[in-house]
């Protein structure tokens, strides 16, 4: 029966127009697919390497600084231009939206491997409250530069790790790469939201109750590793909690427990500024101060000697 089918297939394997055996097109297709993937990947890498985005700067060895900022999106509250203006010191930020401390740990390691230790590390510690696994593949864009990222990807997201080995285009299918395109001509250190929280959100914030901040042991452990690494290199570490919208802060019932746990793990005191700004006009939403709020916040930190 199989022979019968094969005989029938022989009749139609020649393409009627080209006369070329149709099976030939399969390896041709695979070859075109592979070459196109690698060529596109190479071009995109060249484009990405010209970006002024913070993580590109890290891997292009342009990140050396006196004060290193780290955290999730709340770490962006430490607006670099304000700090540089106040302190006359070079500031570099590794804060990113949704960044968990385990991922941050990878970038801190890479920072120390590529740069002289900064004088100070300011770490916004609420980055240990959630995993955000969705963000991990986004940083495969930088996997080519860093063995730490590759090892982390292989452990945390093997599908992405092997996928990006197979297709180089896949490495650039990420929000992080899109951001690097956005900052091809100007640095991202000047970005901070100027939006003011809407009336509707403010009204809704009054109804909030029992908001929790999660204590995740693995992420707390990553915080501890970050602190230990920085201290071993002679960097002074400041652990900070940036402001929350007052109504949101009021609804958080376990922030104190969270702080106690961070202090227990790291052996450092957490400086809690979660209620340091009260006026809602300084907030973009529940968790983020806007650029006006940041100016006020940096003033407070400066007066408290955090940058000294």
């Amino acid at each position: 029966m199989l022979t019968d089918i094969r005989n029938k297939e022989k009749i139609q394997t020649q393409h009627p127009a080209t006369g070329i055996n149709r099976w030939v097109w399969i390896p041709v297709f695979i070859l075109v697919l592979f070459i196109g993937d690698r060529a596109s990947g190479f071009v995109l890498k060249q484009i990405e390497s010209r970006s002024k985005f913070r993580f590109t700067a890290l891997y292009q060895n342009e990140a050396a600084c006196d004060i290193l900022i780290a955290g999730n999106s709340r770490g962006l509250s430490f607006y670099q231009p304000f700090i540089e203006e106040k302190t006359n010191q070079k500031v570099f930020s590794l804060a990113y939206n949704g960044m968990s401390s385990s991922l941050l740990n990878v970038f801190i390691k890479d920072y120390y491997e590529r740069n002289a230790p900064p004088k100070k590390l300011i770490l916004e510690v609420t980055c240990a409250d959630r995993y955000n696994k969705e963000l991990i593949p986004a940083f495969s864009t930088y996997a080519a530069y860093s063995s730490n990222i590759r090892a982390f990807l292989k452990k945390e997201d093997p599908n992405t790790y092997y996928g990006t080995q197979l297709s180089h285009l896949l490495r650039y299918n990420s929000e992080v790469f899109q951001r690097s395109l956005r900052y091809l001509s100007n640095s991202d250190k000047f970005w901070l939201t100027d939006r003011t929280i809407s009336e509707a959100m403010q009204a809704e914030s009054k109804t909030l109750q029992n908001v929790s901040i999660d204590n995740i042991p693995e992420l707390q452990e990553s915080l501890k590793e970050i602190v230990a690494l920085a201290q071993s290199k002679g960097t002074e570490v400041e652990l900070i909690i940036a402001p929350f919208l007052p109504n949101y802060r009021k609804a958080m019932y376990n922030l104190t427990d969270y702080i106690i746990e961070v202090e227990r793990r790291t052996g450092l005191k957490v400086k809690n500024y979660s209620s340091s700004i009260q006026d809602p006009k300084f907030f973009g939403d529940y968790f983020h101060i806007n650029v006006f709020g940041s100016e006020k916040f940096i003033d407070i930190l400066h007066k408290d000697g955090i940058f000294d």
Partner: protein
Amino acid sequence: MFFNSIEFLVFISIFFALYFAVKGLPRLILCLVASYVFYGAWDWRFLSLIVLSTCIDFYVGRQISLTENETIRKRLLLTSMIANLGFLAFFKYFNFFIDSFKGLLISSGIETNMSTLNIILPMGISFYTFQSMSYTIDIYRRQLKAEKDILVFATYISFFPQLVAGPIVRASDFLPQFTMDKKFDWDRIIRGFGQVLWGFFKKVAIADSLALYVDLCFDAPGTYGSLHLIIGVVFYAFQIYCDFSGYSDIAIGLAKMMGFDFPRNFRTPYFSKNFSEFWERWHISLSSWLRDYLYIPLGGNRNGSFGSYFFIGLFFAITVLLTQWWWLILPAIIVGGLLFWYKKQGGKQEAKTFTYLNLMVTMLLGGLWHGVGWTFLFWGFLHGSYLIIQRLLSKPFNSLLNTLRIPTALQNLIAIGIVFFATCFAWIFFRARSFEDAYTIINSIASLADFSWSAVLHKLIVVKCVLLLVMLIGVEIIAQKIDFESLLVRSPVFRVASYAMILWIIAFFGTFGSNAFIYFQF
């Protein structure tokens, strides 16, 4: 097992290797086993439901074809309908009605400890139930001969490419194809593979990317500005289109590679110039099913039947009773009175009245078929209303456009715009979690609060999605002039280039994860 999963890639590779290595009965058994494995991989317990449904309809079909006694034929058909709709009603609607009824009792001051059941909705039940029902109805109508081979019939019911989200293929189209010899056919493989890739592009690159933005919008509509929400609603319109038509493309493409021809399920619906055309282009297999097995039996656009009054009355009574929207009674009396007066004019007016009633019943049932909830029913009501309003106003509207001497191209553009706008409005109810959420979205959009680009969040996703939609619309416009399928077969260079291009785009723009197809839930 989802089409967009590694497991399916392994499954389909093994399947095709075996499929072309065997013929005749072994191939049929392979199809059936593969279909059951595919479905069982999701939840093996529900295989029994498909098997039961298959056995009932196979038996009923055979018995109907064996007798000329009309009473017995009717009874047998009724048995099949009760069994199929009974399964559907139990698994899909039982909890919804119990919940609503409980709400009614509690609000009437009656204490109740009535509880809902922990029922899981079997994937694709709405699709295979309708497919199965069409078989017995067609035999009853003497439009189809009963299938003698239960293996063929079981494969027809459970055929894995279209089992869980259609298209709903009629037995009269599908069963005869089992008797044809299906050789390894290069041209079919090329066409089918192209369609499968295009389906993946729609699903993985477009629909899943749009979903990132849409989900945020509809999960907390109160927190966004009007422009953000407008983008969210338009994105949802394209998300559901790309998700569903993407699935259909994959299903039709896989079937084509296996040697089966399925009818098209979508024909660029957002290019429709009126609502009737929209339903001839959107989920064609469902709308034609509803037309042939519901709308026309109710009387269609010629006359009415007892069913026209019964269904509309039933819908109205259930809605008012369970939602306790007693205020609905007054507008219903007014509309009913107007319709009664219109019908009394006799002749064409009487026929039109029935047409309106039949359209509304069909669309309401269509809405309820899609999902369990009042928002889905309201979505059906809106589409029913659109079809009625179109019939009432299309002539004066077209005359107005002609009087204003608006060029035909612009008239078409206006018509497409109106249909798209109204469709998007209806999608708000389809996607919103509740009427309150839908109201929040509509209110926010209408107020134009925060109507600025700076108030739009996730701009990178928006830019990426717009780029993808431009690609989609561009290809769909070009496809009206060029037959891509023939070009794929004729030109190996075009074939290699287009296949590779689609895969590169998916790699670069795709959103990967465990996003199930939206229509699986229906």
